[in-house]
């Protein structure tokens, strides 16, 4: 089976053609780099995403955060719910772990902006 995908690995958005056998990508063409190949393979069998959102601090100011790596696409809303359930303590430095192992994905939520008190 052939699937057409748009790679989301970078803003280029290469159009990928993926040959799928038994639910697994066996060949990927149309990519300009390795990111596209990896994306296609994951997207077919186990799609993953990076989630960027905000975590409210104790004072109500939103702290921009992101997942330190990619999480299973199906767990996006569990991860955002986990982020909503906690409050960040200011000050926060870019890169600080604000919530470890979000929703049991093994991936941490880290601050993507430094915010003073």
């Amino acid at each position, binding site marked *: 089976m052939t699937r057409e995908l748009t790679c*989301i690995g*970078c*803003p280029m*958005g290469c159009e990928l053609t993926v040959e799928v056998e038994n639910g697994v990508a066996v060949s990927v063409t149309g990519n300009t780099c390795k990111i596209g190949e990896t994306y296609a393979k994951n997207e077919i069998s186990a799609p993953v995403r990076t989630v*960027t*959102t905000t975590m409210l601090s104790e004072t109500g100011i939103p702290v921009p955060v*992101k997942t330190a790596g990619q999480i299973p696409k199906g767990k996006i809303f569990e991860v*955002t719910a986990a982020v909503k359930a906690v409050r960040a303590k200011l000050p926060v430095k870019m890169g600080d772990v604000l919530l470890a192992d979000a929703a049991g994905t093994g991936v941490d939520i880290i601050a993507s*902006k430094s915010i003073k008190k």
Partner: protein
Amino acid sequence: MKNNYDLVIVGGGPAGMAAAISAKKQGIDDILILERDSELGGILNQCIHNGFGLHTFKEELTGPEYAERYADQVRELGIPFELGTMVLGISPEKEISVISRTRGAAKISAKAVILAMGCRERPRGALGIPGYRPQSVYTAGTAQKLVNCEGVVPGKEVVILGSGDIGLIMARRMTLEGAKVRAVVELMPYSSGLKRNIVQCLDDYGIPLMLSHTVIDIKGKEKLEGVYVAAVDSTNTPIAGTEEYFPCDTLLLSCGLIPENELSRSAGIEISPLTNGPTVDESLETSIEGVFACGNVLHVHDLVDFVSEEALRAGENAAAYIKGKPASPGTPVAVKPGNGVKYTVPSKLYAQSVEGNVHIRFRVTGVFKMASIVVTCNGSEIFRKKGRIFVPSEMQDIIIPAEKLSAVSGDIEVFVEGGAAQ
């Protein structure tokens, strides 16, 4: 307080910071960045999604992360900046009128100025959408600021007009904050946003994209109740009988960005009607000597990496100007947009005295597949680049080697060959 500088940069966003760092590295110390917000970073502070920095840092960063890399450099290099400072006007003699709590109402003069004020959004009023004028009709960027900087989610049932990147990003953002985005409505038969954003912002969440549609009426006197959406024909006129009602409590508009050139106009700088930004030559100098422009104020970009590169060149050229580099001799040749090209930056070029390679940035007028970008002068070709696909939503960048330009004797044309527009 000190009120004259070698270089004043209006705007402390990605363009302003990169230009400042570049000028500093060229040996200019007497710099001042003027920023109206309470922190450096500009629009990046509210762009908490990723996709920034792939070219510049070979990493995918979020907006605040990209901004912080530059802000850290500004601080490390000791480049002076003033926050909470609004520039009200610039005179043709490079006298800058500012307002801030610390300076009051003051004038600052500069040998050179770099304009890096960014752009603003097209509001509902300029779109002429009829109907009531309830609360909860926001431009996507204003909603983004409310959500990401104030922690306020403006609604639960959302319709978005405009499938530009800001609209797509906000479709996902609102969804992650618990809202239901009913549709993204796009006037054109194609989306103006990046393809990756269609996938990760709409497809991932099952949000329908309605191409060739528009919002024709807004209901709800005080509180937004819903909108009517209709299909449009090839002249963008709503087609009677296709009206569909979407109950909603929030309407976001992502219908175009306009370079913020009120200050440039106040200085009498020539503005191009094609870009709504200053006309510049290859050194990014505007029609006023010693005033340069870069970033979204010059032309609206889609990648911040291009902004940083452009700003770097503006900083270098401003530094050279301050150091006394003489003005380019002779008259420049015009750089004209030909078939399939909407505009070019620069729009003029001192071909005879060009020193390094020259970047020409432009956007195409439609979707061209398996086509070539061609640059000619008096009919003879000086550059050609083949490509699989060229789309209006992606700014193009071609680099013309200096030696190809030195022989140029007339106007240059940039056009698309092959791959008929779709």
